[in-house]
């Protein structure tokens, strides 16, 4: 087990190095950072001189090696745009993104599994049909449009919820949370729905399809023959057997929620790392972009590791196989 985790961690480091290298090679196609750093009066000599001092004239691999060397020492440089240390900037934005991602991920999982089981067990009812139809909207409308629609209905027309920002935030020193204030919780609702709707639909459809498959399996018939209650069959046996692919998907989707909260964060002016990244791309803020991409690679790697470990918990067969292989 420990050896397995260690092996995965070594792989993780390799993945992150590769991501950093690829992103470094892409940066020069994003544009020239100097355009956004100097006023229009600045002479071409001064621009060239600043570019030289920033090391932007060095070959890509030299810049990359320099980045990795300093990153290993915990130094991600200073933002070209906001002039603040990158690590501090990202750490200050991370709570907003994680809070949003976890809340919307949890909502998506709970409602996704719940609706999925319900629609699998009651295939013909009008409630199931309604849920299935509405969920189609979730997968077919782009996130951007859903966000704007929700803002229009709940912020502008009904004026129930705020249209942007994070509300009042309580600073706990190392973490800032919006969950402890009324305006913070109200601000979370619309972005969480926007971000989670697609994932919820995905999980729901997956659970429903798996559930229908499993309910036809022989062991369910035997369970019925044994006279087990419907409750024990549906939740103790059927649902448990659908969960392995669901956990994989949910885990990977959680990574996507964190990584691609960009659109939701932009629409709701949510002060997270996604909005920071988008603003950095627009101004070619290389230090922030590099640090962000490495961070996202880290998130994916960690989530994959956790998902792999969860398999052991859910599926006893894997434990047996591993144990047999190890001995």
């Amino acid at each position, binding site marked *: 087990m420990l050896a397995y985790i260690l092996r995965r961690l070594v792989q993780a480091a390799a993945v992150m190095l590769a991501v950093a290298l690829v992103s470094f090679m892409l940066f020069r196609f994003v544009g*020239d950072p100097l355009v956004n750093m100097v006023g229009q009066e600045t002479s071409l000599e001064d621009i060239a001189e600043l570019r030289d001092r920033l090391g932007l004239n060095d070959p890509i691999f030299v810049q990359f090696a320099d980045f990795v060397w300093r990153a290993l020492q915990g130094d991600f440089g200073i933002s070209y745009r906001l*002039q603040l*240390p990158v690590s501090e900037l990202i750490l200050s934005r991370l709570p907003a993104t994680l809070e949003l991602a976890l809340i919307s991920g949890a909502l998506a999982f709970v409602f996704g599994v719940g609706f999925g089981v319900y629609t699998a067990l009651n295939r013909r009812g009008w409630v199931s049909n309604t849920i299935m139809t509405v969920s189609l909207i979730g997968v077919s409308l782009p996130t951007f449009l859903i966000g*704007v629609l929700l*803002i229009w209905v709940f912020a502008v027309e009904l004026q129930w919820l705020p249209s*942007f920002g*994070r509300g009042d935030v309580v600073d706990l020193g190392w973490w800032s949370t919006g969950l402890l204030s009324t305006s913070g919780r109200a601000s979370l609702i619309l972005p969480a729905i926007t971000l989670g709707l697609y994932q919820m639909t995905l999980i729901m459809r997956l659970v429903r399809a798996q559930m229908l498959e499993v309910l036809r399996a022989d062991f369910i018939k035997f369970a019925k023959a044994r006279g087990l209650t419907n409750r024990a069959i549906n939740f103790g046996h059927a649902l448990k057997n659908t969960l392995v692919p669901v956990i994989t998907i949910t885990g990977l989707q959680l990574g996507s929620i964190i990584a691609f909260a960009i659109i939701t964060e932009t629409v709701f002016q949510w002060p997270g790392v996604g909005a920071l990244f988008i603003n950095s791309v627009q*101004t*070619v803020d290389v230090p922030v972009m590099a640090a962000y991409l490495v961070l996202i690679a880290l998130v994916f790697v960690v989530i994959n590791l956790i998902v792999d470990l969860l398999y052991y918990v859910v599926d006893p067969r894997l434990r047996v196989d591993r144990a047999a292989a190890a001995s």
Partner: protein
Amino acid sequence: MTVASTWTGRMLLASTALVLAMGTASAETLRWARVGDALTLDPHSQNEGPTSTMLHHIYETLVDRALDGGLTPRLATDWYIDPEDPTVWVFELREGVTFHDGSAFTADDVVFSLERVRAEASDFKALHASVVSAEAADDFTVRVQMEGPTPLYPQNLTNFFIMDRDWAVANEVELPQDYAAGEETFAVRNTNGTGPYTLVSRDPEVLTELAVNESHWDAAPEVTEIIYTPISEAATRIAALLSGEVDFVQDVPVQDIARLEQTDGITVTTGAENRTIFFAYDMGSEDLISASVDGNPFADPLVREAMHLSLDRDAIQQVVMRGQSVPGAQNVAPFVNGWDAALDAYGPPDIPRAQALMAEAGYGDGFSVDLNCPNDRYLNDEAICQAFVGMLAQIGIDANLVSQSRSLHFPLIQNRETDFYLLGWGVPPFDSQYVFDFLVHSEVEARGGWNGSRYSNPAVDEMIQSLATETDLDLRDQTIADIWQQVQDDRVFLMVHNQLLAYATREGANIEVHPENQPRMTTMTFD
């Protein structure tokens, strides 16, 4: 007796109530939203619009720009060229001004700020390039020694903020932040200015709070508290205004103006911005990079004339800009010195004549060329280019539109890698010399940096150089007029229009459009 005292009592009560009512009426919180945040609060680090706009509330300048484009006193009460030495500018300073930390504002602070703004890491140093040194003649007089006569120097000072020397020394921020040094300095998030508002809190790109400076020298503003939130997404920004979550939206998208004007409870104010939008082309090179023909068609005056005749400015104004622009033919805004109504006048497009000119120039079969265009810098920039591509097709020019982000577009112009491009140009000193220096003069030393036209006319260059030192303003204006005449005759620019700005406020809040898009909340009034 009893009656009289009761009456007096009532009067007293009434007047107390009135005072109380006035007190609450004048304490106004303004929630202000625009597309981006100030990049830094260091006053000499970033020469960028939103940054300067924010800093004007915390720090102050020697002179200020009035809404009509003229200069007005601020920390300087008077300024003049030393009658005995034309190379020295004298500034007389306002007395009794204090910084937010209570220390007094003196000539020494101006001398210090002038050193700091000229430092290597300052983004404003080019505006002070002709300064040799500055000295405090007494506590409230500063003498600035220039390299030579510099009649327009005060025009460069409208974004030159004054810092307190003692505060800067105490916090080790004697120099502006240097990117390459790689660390944050104290002045990025902390301030000590003389301005009408003090900084209460700042979370970059999230929220900045300002409170009125009770001990400010000028009349107290109606806005006593400012809550500034950047909202980058246009739809969200407008939604926040409609739902009453913000009071003032500074960057209103062109397509929303008409609808907002129809909306109850919202006021839209529009006004001219000091920014022209124009096309330019390489008229100086032997060969073009992207053209389908040998040689340089743009070098031929007939082709340039034909292109001018093909541009339908009114169509662009009505269709692309939905009325939100002021078309013109002279590449400078009307409130800038040197603008001339006759030169700015334009006629309708004349396609048959343009086609005849193309044939006469030997391009009857037309040619193709790349048109480079930004897509995230000016109002509807890409759509303007698309419209012009269609117009050029009518005279046989097949323009291949390459539109991309400003970070990719502007280096093409600066590195002379584009044949034909769209550019917008603001004129902070409100004088045509600034246009000539950067866009018309040949690329020599500090001048001609943005002359992607590669226009080079020694006679014009000489006239432009004379502007910098000519102290006879009538003679200088005549030279400016002569240069403009030549530039228009040579068709150096294909001017499209002046940009308009739109501000939207909740009803009852009034603010005028600032020509440099740097509105001051001190000028905001409430009904």
